[in-house]
């Protein structure tokens, strides 16, 4: 069983309605294939974006060194979603130490009035870590 939690965003502080989503299993038990999880998350994300001003931020935990796999899984879910055409997803992979990368994405509704500002802020954030971005 999974639980979904939304957090207030500390990432882009000047823009409202950006929420961080955290999805995790309630136990460490091995779960079957993730298709049902995808369906559930897809419904939750659909409801979340009924307010097109909302933006969804997610980061990928580096526990067990699986951040890239988690990032790829979110990407697969996103690409599988029939609502994908309604959204813009901006990905960011940043080096935060010699041996650690930070994976994050932000998803915005195409009708989000802050979309351009979010893109700019996200880019600025990336560049502050990695000027080559």
């Amino acid at each position, binding site marked *: 069983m999974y639980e979904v939690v939304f957090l207030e965003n*500390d990432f882009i502080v000047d823009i409202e309605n950006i929420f961080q989503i955290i999805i995790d299993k309630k136990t*460490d038990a091995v779960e079957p294939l993730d298709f049902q999880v995808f369906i559930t998350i897809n419904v939750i994300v659909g409801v*979340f974006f009924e307010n097109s001003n*909302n933006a969804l931020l997610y980061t990928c935990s580096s*526990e067990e060194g699986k951040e890239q796999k988690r990032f790829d899984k979110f990407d697969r879910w996103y690409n599988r979603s029939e609502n994908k055409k309604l959204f813009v997803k901006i990905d960011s992979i940043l080096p935060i130490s010699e041996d650690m990368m*930070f994976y994050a994405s932000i998803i915005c509704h195409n009708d989000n009035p802050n979309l351009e500002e979010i893109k700019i802020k996200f880019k600025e954030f990336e560049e*502050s870590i990695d000027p080559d971005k």
Partner: protein
Amino acid sequence: MINTKDHITREDRKQKALKAIYKMIEDKKSVRLYIKGEIDLKTIKERGIKFAKPI
């Protein structure tokens, strides 16, 4: 020639951004522990983590 002022500002921005990232990483670890029942809501609040109800 190195523009010290610009360099410091850039470095400050980087440190601020890194601090935000590390806070997100730590917050996420705490929330995952909360989901698994290993810490309670009081601890979450003490760590300055704010749950949200998007509408």
